[in-house]
């Protein structure tokens, strides 16, 4: 057995090394002429806009461009999107490209890669421009870790002044935008400039592949660090004309922990100095035409919320029971109904599909773990979900009002969700409208039997003694 294994193993090894050789060669075929990176630190979601001018200097056509991330960043990477630009200046058009994580076997220091598949392979000598947007969560580390009520919140941001890339970069610049002009310190790597809320690293010329130069920016950030640790959204479809959505939130303020006393007097009388990093309002964007909106937690209704609706959207402004300081938690439930015809459609092949928004309705918030449960009506069959990005899926059964066989629940789970994930997804299923009548018929027959029983009882003499 062992003897047999060894040749196969060597064969595999050869294949792998061949692959390495191929990929190596591809990385040397690409040159980045100009790279510009704009890092936006203004909220707790770090957004990076990355523009690449790529040239194929090799001989073969290349269809994939690689992005590299250090492992610390890759863990916090929530979202990557790439666009290819074509045309010049005003006639620029953007073509979205497929981005997926890949593994390279010889990645130095466990570098993680994403590969961008180009629509048209890049021929030898051609250039193209790529716009990449990627988003990190939990990348701003509060320092000091604990602050009192009157202090403002300072955070560390760690990155590299030089762009990590498997390719040679001819010229690169990095801009970092801080939320305020107050910057405690930042690492210098000349040429480095700072003006207002912007810092400029570069331009740096001719950096070899995998160049890395760590920097730390220590700046003020008093934006709400609203993190939903767990969000469960339940979408219940009723073919009687309504979709009921219930959302269970576990909210936490992920910024610097609150230290010492909390003085209500101070908080209310001097709002600009006291508790600047805390937040008490949150904005939830709900679909238009919502009805019966409620906002409560396990001990009852929370009376502080406002709903504004217009034809485009509904804005629900909610306040947790208490202002959230660093490390404080709150749980609450938002529920609402929307008309069925806005979100449920029939596809040409006779199946029905729900077209609904993924992600979290709260603006500017990060969801660590999002679970969407789509409860299909009783009697529906063959459910399948279509989501544009990878999610975990499984099926459950739920028993609700007077169910006999139970309702099929399509469960979609995703970790690390940011507002960029608020795109639509579809759940397809087949449903026979006759099942709508099952429950009313059941009730009617039960009542009918009850009355029959009553009539029978009144007409039968059950006494033993006449």
């Amino acid at each position, binding site marked *: 057995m062992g003897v047999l294994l060894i040749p196969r193993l060597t064969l595999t090894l050869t294949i792998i090394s061949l692959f390495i050789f191929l990929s190596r060669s591809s990385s040397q075929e690409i040159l980045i002429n100009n790279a510009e990176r704009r890092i936006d630190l203004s909220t707790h979601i770090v957004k990076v806009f990355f523009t690449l001018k790529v040239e194929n200097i090799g001989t073969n056509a290349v269809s994939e461009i690689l992005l590299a991330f250090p492992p610390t960043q890759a863990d916090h990477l929530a979202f990557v999107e790439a666009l290819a630009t074509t045309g010049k200046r005003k006639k620029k058009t953007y073509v979205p490209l497929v981005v997926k994580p890949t593994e390279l076997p010889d990645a130095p220091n466990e570098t993680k890669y994403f590969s961008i598949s180009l629509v048209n392979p890049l021929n030898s000598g051609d250039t193209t421009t790529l716009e990449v947007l990627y988003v990190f969560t939990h990348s701003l580390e509060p320092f000091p870790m604990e602050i009192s009520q009157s202090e403002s919140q300072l955070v560390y941001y760690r990155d590299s002044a030089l762009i990590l890339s498997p390719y040679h970069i001819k010229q690169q610049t990095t801009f970092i935008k801080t939320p305020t002009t107050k910057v405690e310190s930042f690492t210098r790597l000349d040429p480095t400039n700072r003006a207002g809320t912007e810092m400029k690293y570069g331009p740096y010329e001719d950096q070899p592949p995998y160049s890395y130069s760590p920097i730390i920016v220590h700046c003020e950030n008093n934006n709400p660090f609203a993190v939903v640790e767990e969000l469960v959204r339940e979408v219940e479809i009723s073919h009687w004309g309504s979709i009921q959505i219930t959302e269970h939130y576990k909210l936490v303020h992920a910024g610097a922990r609150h230290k*010492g006393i909390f003085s209500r007097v101070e908080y209310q009388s001097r709002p600009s100095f006291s508790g600047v990093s805390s937040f008490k309002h949150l904005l939830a964007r709900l679909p238009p035409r919502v009805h019966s909106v409620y906002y409560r937690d396990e001990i009852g209704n929370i009376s502080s919320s406002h709903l504004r609706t217009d034809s485009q959207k509904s804005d629900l402004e909610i306040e947790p*029971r208490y202002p959230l300081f660093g*490390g404080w938690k709150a749980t609450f439930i938002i529920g609402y109904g929307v008309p069925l015809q806005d979100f449920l459609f029939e596809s040409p092949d006779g199946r029905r599909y729900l077209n609904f928004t993924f992600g979290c309705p709260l603006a500017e918030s990060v969801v660590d773990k999002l679970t969407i449960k789509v409860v299909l009506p009783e009697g529906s069959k063959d459910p399948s979900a279509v989501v544009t990005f990878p999610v975990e899926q499984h099926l459950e059964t739920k028993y609700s009002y007077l169910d006999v066989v139970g309702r099929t629940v399509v469960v979609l789970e995703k970790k690390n969700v940011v507002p960029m994930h608020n795109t639509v997804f579809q759940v397809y299923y087949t449903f026979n409208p006759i099942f709508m009548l099952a429950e009313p018929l059941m009730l009617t027959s039960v009542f009918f039997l009850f009355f029959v029983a009553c009539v029978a009882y009144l007409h039968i003499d059950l006494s033993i003694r006449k």
Partner: protein
Amino acid sequence: MAAVDKASETTLRNAFGNVLSFFILLLIGVLAFSIRLFSVIKYESVIHEFDPYFNYRVTQFLTKNGIYDFWNWFDDRTWYPLGRVIGGTVYPGLTLTAGTIWWLLNSLNIPLSVETVCVFTAPIFSAFASWATYLLTKEVKGTGAGLTAAVLLAMVPSYISRSVAGSYDNEAVAIFALIFTFYLYIKTLNTGSLFYATLNAVAYFYMVCSWGGYTFIINLIPMHVLLCIVTGRYSSRLYIAYAPLVVLGTLLAALVPVVGFNAVMTSEHFASFLVFIVIHVVALVHYIKGVLSAKMFKVAVTLVVSVGLVVCIAAVAVLVALVASSPTKGWSGRSLSLLDPTYASKYIPIIASVSEHQPPTWPSYFMDINVLAFLVPAGIISCFLPLSDASSFVILYIVTSVYFSGVMVRLMLVLAPAACIMSGIALSQSFDVFTRSIKFQLFGVPGNSKVDAGDTSSDSSVAENDGAKPDKREDTLKERPSRKNKKKEKEQVEKIHVDKTSIKSKKEKKLLVLPVEASLIALILLVFLGAFYVVHCVWAAAEAYSAPSIVLTSYSNDGLHVFDDFREAYGWLSHNTDVDDKVASWWDYGYQTTAMANRTVIVDNNTWNNTHIATVGTAMSSPEKAAWEIFNSLDVKYVLVVFGGLVGYPSDDINKFLWMVRIGGGVFPHIKEPDYLRDGQYRIDSQATPTMLNCLMYKLSYYRFVETDGKGFDRVRRTEIGKKYFKLTHFEEVR
């Protein structure tokens, strides 16, 4: 031929009457349920007040862990570090009821939350209670009175105050159980059926499960039995109504863990056993009387009495010695304070400190039972005309409950059903008289029995004659084996009665006839009275009794203001403190803290340990350092203080503070009430005593208060505070 026609006409009328009263009852149920929904509509579907939160928490535990864990539940979240055995110290009726409803609904796949079920338990049971009132009053005075009493009960403010949606308290189901037990007792008394006697014992068991007020039943029924015996109304029906109740009822009551051996050991139950002996003696005497000749009987009586007297005296002496040997004479504190209204304020400040244990004021009678207070005397009179076993019971019920309600505000609740029954009887009887006299005046002398027999229901005509011919009635009652036969029999009985009464009734009716004008005016006035009652009840339900007390609202120029500070505090505690942190507060907030914040408390509303409460009271009334030492010894991390001086919320801790001093001082003599009073007056301004100004409660409440408006003006006490600028040395403000 004509006779058959008449008979079929009467059956038709009866059938119509039955269907009509069925629908009226259904509507009464809907009314009773929906008048209690003001709290849900105006506020929200939430548990109210203090005790309901505990019941809610227990129900949650029950639904989560099942019945066996519930009986063995040792709660370590309360009375730290003592804990409390919940399964053995609660009346489980309410929780089991709601738990069963929840389980039933969920097994039908109706996913209502435990909270929703708890919120709506009280309105559902008030509908049941009004149906039970109908049954009880029907047994006493007929269908008309029954329906009237049921309507009155469905919206009596006193009962609404304890059973609005969300008021998930023992009383909500207990009042139903109370009335239903009484109904079954009267039913047994009227029919002499062992079936109803057994049901009665079961209903009594449910009452024992539900509320400590079951002692009222087990004292009132013996009293009535004794009354019947004394007034020479002993019958075998009385025996059947009473003896099984005592035997079965006591056995069943002893099954409830919280009652246990109290069912035979405490003085509250002695009356029932004494009467149990008496009724057996009387039964024996009756039996012997039947066996022996009159002369022999006299001899036997003298013999037995002389011997029996000696034995009795000995027995009573032993009993008295036994009872007297215990310090409270075998009575629990609350029962004693009922018998001696001054007892609680003298010896147990903790009972006296609860506002619902205070004696009521006159306006509260008007508020709680409104016009019923004026109708009750009329009802009592009508119960005497004629006096039957059932009506004497109702009279006894109203008399005792009036006394009890005079001692404690909260027992107004027991008075309410009695008042409703009495007023129902009064209203229905007076309507009866007025309409009959109008009919008589307008349509002349009723030629046949149709008019009067049809209108006053058959039962009431039976009841009317009950006093005159008790033996006759018993005979007819015995021949009622099945329902079908019963119906026929009823007709026969009716006919007999009609025949017999037709001569007599003419005489009677002539006496009752009033002039048309007078009857019309009286009728209109009665309708006005009823309308006034309805208006008052709806107002009371909507405005006075529907506030959940954990949410406060106030109207001002710029609209509605909601003060949700209680839940804000509990919500914060629940999410932002460690799971095992201990929270100290005055005992009022104990149940809410454990239920809403899920944190361990030192004392709560189940005031079973006076010393522990006194410790907290002492800490609150001590200076900061001493208080810190006490709290530290109890592992307390957070102290919850309710202060309403800024928004004008009157029932805050500063206003309760004197009770803390009194209760604390009762156990720890270094806390003296006069130290906190200036010339006998409780004040917090600059005239206040230094002890007051330095105690923990004062400091926690008014910490940095002066910074809110610059003066430190307390809107509840309407004064500027005495000590404005101070620092806390041992405590920190966290919320």
